[in-house]
């Protein structure tokens, strides 16, 4: 089953990895950042080797977005961000796991200082035979 891990964060200034640019992240010593980054890289290597990793992207500053709305007269474009939310979508990972429990185990490791990981199952066009 496929799951998306959405990374919500509000780095200021906008930058990646987000943990280097959030207030929570800045209060952590560099050695701790290095340790967390190593752990994260090891986890990415693990899910790549296992075939569970599908794809991922880090996203540009929400201010660079263009928002398209629909009206009966046609589409209306405005410059972003989409909403003045406290946390913005900073990136996403698409994973393919055998079970929800496994997806949860992976997703938990995507939370970082000043960023929240949201796990969402992807819908699929098939159905179980029950």
């Amino acid at each position, binding site marked *: 089953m496929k799951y998306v891990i959405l990374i919500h964060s509000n780095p200021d200034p906008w930058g990646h990895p987000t943990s280097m640019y959030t207030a929570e992240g800045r209060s952590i010593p560099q050695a701790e950042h290095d340790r967390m980054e190593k752990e994260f890289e090891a986890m990415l290597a693990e899910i790549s080797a296992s075939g569970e990793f599908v794809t991922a992207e880090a996203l540009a500053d929400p201010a660079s977005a263009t928002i398209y709305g629909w009206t009966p007269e046609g589409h209306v474009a405005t410059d972003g961000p989409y909403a003045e939310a406290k946390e913005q979508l900073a990136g996403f990972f698409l994973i393919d796991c055998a079970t929800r429990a496994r997806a949860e185990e992976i997703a938990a490791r995507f939370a970082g200082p000043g960023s929240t990981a949201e796990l969402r199952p992807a819908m699929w*066009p098939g*159905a179980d035979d029950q």
Partner: protein
Amino acid sequence: MTEGGLEDVWRECAPHVLVALVHRYGDFDAAEDAVQEALLAAARQWPAEGTPDNPRGWLIRVASRRLVDQWRSDQARAVREELVAREPAVPAGPEGDDSLGLLLLCCHPALARPSQVALTLRAVGGLSTAQIARAFLVPEATMAQRISRAKARLRQVGARFTVPAAAELPDRVAAVAQVLYLVFTEGHTATTGTGLTDTSLAAEAIRLTRTLHRLLPRAGEVSGLLALMLLTDARRAARTRPDGSLVPLAEQDRSRWDRARITEGIALVEATLPAGPVGPYQLQAAIAAVHAEAATAADTDWAQIELLYRMLADRAPGPVVTLNHAVAVAEVRGPAAGLEMLEPLLADPALRRHHRLHAVHAHLLERAGQPDRARAAFATAARLATSIPEQRYLNSRL
């Protein structure tokens, strides 16, 4: 011959060609790539030039040439050629052992489940990376990487395609069975393409399970798995309406069930169950057989199904088995008894966010004369569903 017929020919040959190459050259990883290229060459050439007289020989020749070309272009060729020269020619054992060894290798415990599935479909099923990627809705590059990493992992752990010792064999065969069942369930509606040569993954799972059954005719759980697949697949045409919406088992037009599949599945169940020991696949197949034998939904022998679920709960207990058992209990002893069994599951961390628990809950509440609570349970089930047609069905019940 149609293009689909040709594809059947080269895919039937694929595992034998791979085994021949590994015997000759020893390198599973490179041999597997070379076979894949030979299959692609067959896909290009056979429809235009006709099937060769000896398809297997043709594929072995082309794949060997690719493998040798690959080595020649390799910088470390001197070392490689020396290795090949030193490698003693492995005498080919009985063909059956080779096919089993190949299946066991693809489902090696060092590999994660998605990798086992991908490698089995490619190396044993003879599907192309592109076909497998389409069936599992992932980019082709992702699937290619998954397969090459799986092969690297096999090399790393020194896995070989020999049949393991008798003590280890049942566990290894169980892993193959799980992989094939996963291909079957995930592939229930998925096809590998959009053209004439589409292969349904469910059909592929049945084909590979047939092979496994032929290799291990006395393995009861393999027979059970094959029977379960046949009896489930028999209902495929009746499961969906032309608009793609789902038809629940009780409402299916049973004249559209595939009689040939049902006859074969029931015969397997009847031959296997008395031979014992009875495992979970055999019991699930027996349950499917009871459904298949009922002329109408009202004729279903629920008492027998309830008994089979009790046996299944005894051998392979788990919340999903309890859920299905509760449905049978409700049919035999009424909705209140079923609801009582569901109660603890509503708090079970493994199941409480699974749509099917709430869908069953909703059905039983409805039958117990509690329409308001039933509607709320249908709403919960619909929110949790990740299948588009199932969610549409559940939303229609609100």
